[in-house]
């Protein structure tokens, strides 16, 4: 320990090759990345660039074939066993046989928390995502946006400092998406969590992030890392400011550079 708080996520020379019937596919190659505490990092890139794979490696849902990855100073597997992160998937993945509150309680039950502690945390996290009053509803009785909010509440319920989100709003319409983006920023400001966020939308990435990791495919690699100069306080109309548009233009250039050999 050097006294400096260790990185939440540290990857070095990370590589992952899938063996498929058509031969090996290099999903990740030579990824170096350090994410500090309290950062909001977006991963953006065309499909097949390995952004979801990278998130899954951090979550220990995939094993890297080369290089090293550490989460909270531990290996990814140890971090997963210690429940170091909450993961939000592309779809809500709520269990239809459980009410919203029992869905949020799912990780708490597995962790063996007491009933009283469970009830307290369910109330707090459902408040956080504005779903109070829907505790007794079943997922199929709610709209898509509410379902995704419930799944965020479930990821928040066990209070991990790291939140991994894999295109959580990809299937929602623009209006709901704007609304949830705003809520997510407020939540991040209130809880001071570290968030890794996969997206394929440039405005979403620029609006949310403190840092944007641009990735490119074949092989999946990091092609650019852009620091955001936007203030922490971000109303929705910040997206019309020149500063915002300049960052968006840089991200677009980065994406185009990654594609250049296709032309």
């Amino acid at each position, binding site marked *: 320990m050097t006294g400096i708080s260790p990185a939440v996520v540290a990857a070095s020379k990370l590589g992952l090759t899938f063996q498929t019937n058509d031969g090996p596919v290099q999903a990740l190659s030579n990824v170096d990345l350090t994410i500090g505490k309290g950062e909001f990092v977006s991963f953006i890139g065309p499909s097949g660039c390995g952004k979801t794979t990278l998130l899954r490696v951090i979550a220990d849902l995939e094993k890297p074939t080369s290089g090293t990855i550490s989460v909270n100073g531990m290996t990814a597997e140890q971090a997963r*066993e210690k429940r170091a992160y909450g993961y939000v998937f592309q779809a809500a*993945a709520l*269990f239809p046989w459980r009410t919203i509150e029992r869905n949020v309680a*799912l990780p708490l*039950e597995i962790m063996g928390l007491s009933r009283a502690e469970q009830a307290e945390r369910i109330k707090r996290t459902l408040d956080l995502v504005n779903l109070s009053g829907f505790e007794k509803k079943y997922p199929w009785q709610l709209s898509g946006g509410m379902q995704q909010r419930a799944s965020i509440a479930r990821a928040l319920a066990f209070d991990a400092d790291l939140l991994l989100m894999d295109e959580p709003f990809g299937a929602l319409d623009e209006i709901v998406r704007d609304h949830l983006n705003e809520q997510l920023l407020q939540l991040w400001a209130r809880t001071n969590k570290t968030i890794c966020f996969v997206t394929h939308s440039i405005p979403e990435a620029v609006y949310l992030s403190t840092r944007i990791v641009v990735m490119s495919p074949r092989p999946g690699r990091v092609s650019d890392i852009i620091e955001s100069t936007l203030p922490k306080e971000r109303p929705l109309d910040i997206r019309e400011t020149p500063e915002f548009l300049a960052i968006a233009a840089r991200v677009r250039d980065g994406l185009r550079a990654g594609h250049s050999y296709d032309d």
Partner: protein
Amino acid sequence: MNWLKPSWQALLAIVLCVIAIALGAMSKPEAAALADPTASISYPYLGTKGLMLGLAIVAALISMIRIPSLVEAIVLFVGAHLVAWLLISGIAGFEGTALAPYFLLLTAAWLLGWRCVAVLSGLRPMASTARNALRLIIPAIFGAWILIIWEAVTRGAGIPFILLPPPSAIGARIAGSLPVLGADVRQTIFKAVIFGYVVGSGAGFITAILADRVPFLRRGLLPIGNMVSALPIIGVAPIMVMWFGFDWQSKAAVVIIMTFFPMLVNTVAGLAASGHMERDLMRTYASGYWPTLIKLRLPAAAPFIFNALKINSTLALIGAIVAEFFGTPVVGMGFRISTEVGRMNIDMVWAEIAVAALAGSVFYGVVALVERAVTFWHPSVRGG
């Protein structure tokens, strides 16, 4: 003409009644009496013939007036069933003498009953109690007409008792042999079927979990299991009787063999039914094998497991009854069927069949009700 609302069933019923009137005699004694007016021959429908024809025609006519559907259904119901009752009760003592008008009138009454069910099916009541009542009444009328036609045809045409007894005779036999039927149900259903069903389904379920947990069982047991499930039950039953004796234990063994594999195969399929995303989610919670099984995979497998339970509820009954053909103590539904058919007591055979059908339906119905309560969340239950 907007006060008129013709239906083909009612029109055809009137046409059939008119033909019946034109043909005259409804039975052979009546024809003989008409041919020889001086002789005093007693014949059926002496006073009720006009009443029956009139009832059918009037009910058909009223049903075609533009009146509320419920009133129309009641008129048709009363007309059709009154005619059927008069027809069946009038033939008593003259079985086998019916002529064409008898069957024409029966058909006319049946058409009115059909129209009645069609009108009831079209009703869309607001109250849920009325909707539930309709859900019972419509199949009840439907089933009643199967029995009415069966009764009227067997008695009117004088079908030999040995070929097909009328339902009233079967009903009388059931009422008269309740102790025997009760003993048979106790032996076959409460001992062999229930025990075999619970043990067979339970063993299939546990084996599926084991095969899921232990890879070598999955690779080795399941293919062999599929082969054994193709074993002909008729071949297995005598061997089970040799192994486990004449009493219910050997029948339970047959039921176990029959119910084991549907449950095994369905549970294995069900355990694979949970989605990748849900399983990844459980992995992110560092959830072990058993919590994942109990909280995710078994609930997701519930529709498959209940499918097996429903299949098994009918298989178990078939297995136990067939197994009793190969040797039993002197009690049991299969034993009764095989001995009474040899003694030409066909009504007793039908009585056993009726009891078996009733027991099987109740069994299936209970499993289906439990399924609705447990898998309320499944799209097939909650409706989309």
